[in-house]
């Protein structure tokens, strides 16, 4: 085990001390994105709610906030999907089964899945934004009868950039309507081509019954929300997951401040009406 990870029970770790988690399996989702299954060295489960994240690290390369993409009903198996974008994520993505990663958390406000019972739920995802929504999808499907329509609107850059492509059919069979599109493709791709917002128009939503969980690049979320509002979905019924420069994860350092809120503590999930005033402020 790497020396910098204190040997303390997972799930009861001190807020500032990473707990050691071993990589059990690694799966390549796209050319630069991997999904890891982790297990706490101490054997304790990391109880979490859909949409929460952890601060994940590999020895010496620093921490990065990563949403938990696993099943909240299987907390002993911690899943993280990581895209290699910089030094810290590249170090994590280079991990192999048997390696040890540091985990702090879980942090943040979750998707309000329990409050959406009885509603149609639209899950709008762009790119790797599907990762924080995977835990919500698994939660909703495990309680399928409590919800109305469940619709996934998922957009990615190209067909080979779709994450969890092998799981979409299984979700569909469990009662999730799946609409997928890519921004560009060759003629061999038989699916949709076009921006993800177009899927919202095709989904024939019953706006007053619809609640939305949305995650993706901020620009994508802005356009998606704008489309949903035009279709009549209420601003109070739209929830987004935000991302900023998260460092401490516990609301102490202030790096992730957005307007009056700290994303690590008050977010990452926000009601659109609460976060919207700050989205278009360029300096933030």
């Amino acid at each position, binding site marked *: 085990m790497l020396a910098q990870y204190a040997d303390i029970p997972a799930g009861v770790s001190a807020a500032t001390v990473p707990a050691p988690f071993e990589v059990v399996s690694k799966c390549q989702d796209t050319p630069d994105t991997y999904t890891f299954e982790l297990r706490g060295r101490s054997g304790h489960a990391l109880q979490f709610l859909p949409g929460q994240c952890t601060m994940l690290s590999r020895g010496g390369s620093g921490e990065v906030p990563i949403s938990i993409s696993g099943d909240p009903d299987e907390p002993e198996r911690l899943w993280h999907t990581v895209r290699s*974008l910089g030094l810290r994520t590249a170090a994590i993505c280079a991990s192999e089964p048997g390696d040890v990663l540091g985990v702090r958390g879980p942090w943040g406000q979750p998707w309000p899945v329990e409050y959406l019972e009885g509603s149609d739920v639209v899950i709008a995802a762009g790119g790797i934004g599907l990762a924080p929504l995977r835990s919500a999808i698994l939660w909703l499907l495990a309680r399928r009868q409590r919800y109305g329509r469940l619709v996934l609107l998922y*957009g990615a*850059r190209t067909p080979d950039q779709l994450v969890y492509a092998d799981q979409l059919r299984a979700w569909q069979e469990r009662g999730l309507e799946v609409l997928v*599109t890519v921004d*560009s493709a*060759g*003629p061999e791709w038989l699916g949709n*081509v076009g921006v993800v917002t177009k899927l919202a128009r095709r989904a024939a939503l019953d706006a007053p019954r619809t609640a939305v969980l949305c995650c993706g690049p901020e620009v994508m979320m802005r356009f998606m929300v704008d489309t949903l509002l035009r279709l009549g979905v209420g601003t109070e019924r739209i929830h987004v997951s935000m991302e900023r*420069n998260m460092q401490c994860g516990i609301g102490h350092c202030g790096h992730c401040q957005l307007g009056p809120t700290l994303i690590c503590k008050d977010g990452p999930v926000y009601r659109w009406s609460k976060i919207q005033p700050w989205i278009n402020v360029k300096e933030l």
Partner: protein
Amino acid sequence: MQALDELISASPVFGGMQEKHLKLIADCGRPVEVDADKYLFHAAGVADTFWLIRTGTIALELHGAGRGAVVIETLHDGEVVGWSWLFAPYRLQFDGRATEPCSLVAFDAARLRAKCDEDHELGYQLMQRFASYMAVALMATRMQLLDVYGDARAVR
């Protein structure tokens, strides 16, 4: 088969138009079927037709040297295919390929243009609807240009 004017009035692009205008448009339309993987039209062709998709999917393709065909957008049930017929020099910009068996309404665009010249209210109504359609398409294109899922390297 459903009457053409009923089909047309039920479509998002023509919905809400006056009955007399719907009839004029329907007079220019005829039902067509296209097999999967067949091309409906090719770039640089004369834009004397546009289509309303009843069922199926049409892929708009652009061919580039060394890249082959790239699908720009797929169009689906209830959407119109083509607006080059509205503007001189009336030339098609893309190839249109059916990715599955398609049922369409093909409109004689040259004839409809002539009717618009005679009836400016019809022309205004059509132009307003197609402009709205084009604005949505323009916004989508800008989003694609932003490449929002691209490699936004940051501190991570």
